């Protein structure tokens, strides 16, 4: 019996210790999260006069779009852009996406190939969004059996 009591006491003390640690952890975590979201501790500084300048957060800048181009990847702005950025530029560059122009059927075949051989994950509902973005923004061009020469940069050829 004595041993059982002793054991119970030990369990209680461990329980107390764990609870204290947990409470400390929650407080610290809350503090850290708060600091991350408000590093200047502005909440404790009272109200400030509204500034003329709008603060641009780093997160916004990371996926900044300028003139219809997602700057980080070079992809065109459009419905489904972020699904493409998040699913299609982890392993390879967006350059590989943009230089390929395929129809829906061939994009899906390409996705299957990447899933079978290149460790691409199941895209779920995003697959339709991604394929729609690709065929809308990077549609195939008809080139025929041989294109004319374009973008010739003319120069005087000296002897």
């Amino acid at each position, binding site marked *: 019996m004595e041993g059982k009591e002793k054991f119970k006491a030990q369990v209680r003390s461990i329980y107390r210790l764990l609870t204290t640690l947990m409470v400390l952890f929650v407080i610290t975590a809350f503090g850290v999260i708060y600091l991350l979201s408000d590093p200047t501790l502005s909440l404790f500084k009272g109200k400030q006069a509204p500034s003329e300048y709008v603060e*641009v957060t780093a997160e916004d800048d*990371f996926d900044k779009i300028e003139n219809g*181009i997602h700057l980080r990847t070079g992809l065109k702005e459009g419905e489904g852009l972020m699904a493409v950025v998040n699913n299609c530029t982890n392993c390879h560059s967006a350059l590989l996406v943009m230089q390929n122009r*395929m129809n829906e059927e061939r994009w899906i075949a390409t996705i299957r190939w990447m899933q079978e051989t*290149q460790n691409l994950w199941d895209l779920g509902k995003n697959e339709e969004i991604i394929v729609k973005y690709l065929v809308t923004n990077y549609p*195939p*061009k008809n080139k025929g059996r041989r294109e004319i020469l374009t973008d010739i940069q003319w120069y005087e050829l000296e002897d």
Partner: protein
Amino acid sequence: MSTFSLSEDISLGDPARFRARKLPTYGQMSNGKETGKGNISNFKALVEIAYAPMNRRHFIKNTALGTLTAAVGTEIVFGKMIPNGYSLLALQDPDPFTLFRKDREMVILNDKPWNIEAKAHLLDDKITPNKFMFIRNNGLIPEEVDVASWTLTIDGEAVRKPKIYTLSELKSKFKTYTYQLTLECGGNGRSEFDPPAKGNQWTVGAVSCAEWTGVRLRDVLEDAGFTEKAVYIGYHAADVHLSRDPKKETISRGAPMAKALQDETLLAFKMNGEDIPLAHGYPLRLVAGGWPASVSGKWIQRISIRDRVHDGSKMTGDSYRMPCNPVAPGEKVKDEDMCIIESMPVKSLITYPQSGAMIKEGRKLNIRGHAWAGELEVSKMEYSIDFGSTWQNCSLQKPVNRLAWQHFSADISFPKKGYYEVWGRATDSNGKSQPMLLPGWNPKGYLNNACHRIAIKVT
């Protein structure tokens, strides 16, 4: 240390660094027009992203000085004094042209994995220097190359006894040979196919003819010994899969024994008289001229002598395979109806002058370039200034050695002022010529050997 140790100097975790920089709109790069004058700071940003996962600090720490020398491309004076963990400035430069020592007119098709091509006029040299040599990668360039511990293993179902060679053993035990060998990417010219074919959209510049030095693969295979069951060799290399899955092989291709045993098939350790640049396969590369350049595996660690057609990564499916029988453009082809590409077809490039030359009326135009024909020799080279109505002969040199490209030249007179296109057409020793139109469509857009042409104005 995580694979992201590079973030000490180039941090992905700090989005603020993107704030000041305007990143490039990449569309400009892949069409090959603007790249020469590309904004360097844009490229730096671009490369920082592309290179972020590369464990460069780790790479520096763990490599012998020889690797650094190869990567930097010159002797590192006082190299022994480099403190542990210090990144050489040359390697900190994230500009791909500096990093790979490429000419700034080279065109970046893809930065992850790195794929860079030349333009026709950049390939004017008889022997292609590194700065104009295309880079084709299926995966990530190896992060750690330790020459001292690098070994080549010969194994496989048909080897007599598996054998391991160090680099110095290879160099001392076997006689070395030097050949000029034409390496062309199977997908060179892919950008012209309609409907478009999947992959890097190469135009004309995924071809080179450098001088390779190494030992004959045959000598090494015979030293290890193989049985009559031997059918094919397959290589295994040190590059890293794009998904970074260590269980996946990026590319593991090969060739039938007959190709493996040719005099010119080398296990090379020098290119143009120097250590092979890292991006081109340092410290050991298989070089099989005249076949799709993917047969010439880079960063070779193992060669298996197989009792069957090698079935490694990129040997199956649509990769480096053509429909066995011709198909209509866009047609679906069953897996069993695809055949592995062997010799590349006859082809040529006009490397001088650059397209767009304007000359005065009455002046002759000198053109020159190279022609090659896979396993075969080029027997005739012609040009046309009237869209193929008439053809005139160019003077054509014999190859320096088998599988080296051949040089041609011609002096052209134009009948009157106006716009012309000079088309070049090579014919191989079997009488096959380059088509003026695109050859047979195939799912991955391989083997476009249509005539090259340049625009000329007589004023």
